């Protein structure tokens, strides 16, 4: 089963870490991804640029409305995601708990609808 793991974090906390601390966390991510790939669990993933770079697009009555910023001003914002294969929801949650940002933010676990 495919799951999307949304990595949600407080951007200010992330930015207030030192360069060294951030490098350490990136190294943890690379190690985790290598481990998941070795187990055939990792499909793909990416880090997103900060919420300040977001543009939000709506179409209403045929008109395009574009606003700067994310769709909602929540304290935590989506900073990245993993797409994984797991045998169960429990396994997906266990993988989510290994993501470094789980220690300071929140990982939202969402099952993906199978292709029609």
């Amino acid at each position, binding site marked *: 089963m*495919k799951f*999307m793991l*949304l990595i*949600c974090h407080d951007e200010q906390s992330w930015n207030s870490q030192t360069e060294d601390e951030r490098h350490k966390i*990136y190294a943890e*991510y*690379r190690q985790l*991804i*290598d481990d998941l*790939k070795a187990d055939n669990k*990792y*499909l*793909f*993933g*990416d*880090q*997103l*640029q900060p*919420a300040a*770079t*977001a*543009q*939000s*697009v*709506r*179409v*209403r009555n045929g008109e*395009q409305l*574009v606003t700067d910023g*994310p*769709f*909602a001003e*929540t*304290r*935590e914002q*989506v900073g990245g*995601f993993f*797409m994984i294969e797991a045998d169960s*929801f429990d396994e997906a*949650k266990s993988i*989510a*708990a290994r993501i470094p940002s*789980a*220690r300071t*933010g*929140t*990982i*939202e*676990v*969402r*099952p*993906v*609808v199978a*292709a*029609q």
Partner: protein
Amino acid sequence: MAKMKYMLLVYMDEQAMTDEERAHCYVESAQLTQTLHANGQYVAAGPLHSVSTATSVQVRDGKRLVTDGPFAETREQLGGYYVVEAKDLDEAIDIAQRVPPAKYGTIEIRPLMEIPGLPESN
């Protein structure tokens, strides 16, 4: 010409569509991905199951905390995603406004970061 990658996060009030509208939306979305693929713009896409199936995981002081539901109780919730290649933000916006749920919800466009050392996506 160098292309950039963008993620299109599809946010919607799940109550905003009838089942019939949702089924129609899936069909239109699949057609859009075919068009994007033909134009060399498609990287990945997928719908997510309802937010009622969401679980949120945090680790604090070495302990795992698992709660039912999404990380934030916003009116619009994440319903799907696209990852696309486009030459600039304007092209990404042009793609976003063609995503069928743009008529019901909000498509948040986020440029992706290049991180050295991450495995290549297939």
